[in-house]
């Protein structure tokens, strides 16, 4: 399976997916850490993919959403944004609304 197919499969199988460096317990980057904290604060279940464990996905995810950085959040198969956008949407209440609308 190509990296693009693999990503498509993952984001269709899980409602909320965060591509990150490390995992929520041991994030390997400050931005990934911030992203998991935001999702935890939204009190939502989420599935994470550690891109450091799969170099094809690490490169592939940047092409998938035409987005050069990690973390990346997907809700119901749609790319929502990186850490900056997650933070802004959390602060203005849009993220919780989006998560609730999709739960």
């Amino acid at each position, binding site marked *: 399976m190509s990296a693009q197919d693999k990503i498509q499969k993952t984001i269709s199988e899980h409602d909320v997916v965060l591509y990150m460096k490390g995992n929520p317990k041991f994030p390997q980057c400050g931005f990934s850490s911030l992203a998991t904290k935001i999702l935890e604060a939204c009190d939502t279940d989420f599935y994470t993919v550690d891109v450091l464990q799969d170099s094809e996905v690490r490169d592939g995810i940047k092409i998938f959403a035409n987005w050069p*950085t990690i973390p990346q959040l997907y809700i119901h198969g749609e790319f929502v944004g990186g850490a900056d956008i997650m933070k802004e949407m959390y602060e203005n209440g849009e993220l919780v609304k989006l998560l609730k609308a999709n739960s």
Partner: protein
Amino acid sequence: MTADDIKQSIVEKLECELVNILGEDGTHFEGTIVSRLFEGLNRVKQHQMVYSALGDKMKSEIHALSMKTYTPSEWEQLKN
């Protein structure tokens, strides 16, 4: 890579009202970008425009660019 290099690359490719880039360590930067080209676009598309202006630099030299993008009217509101 300095904050000024990043600013230069952005303004060369993207017509902006304001570009402010901060960052001392050569790989992590913070920026504020105001452009009328952002009108009618969501945040993802706005950030993609900035990333695309930076092109290959985003892949190699810049580890992280934390950014805030605004349309001129959003920026005016924020200042007041």
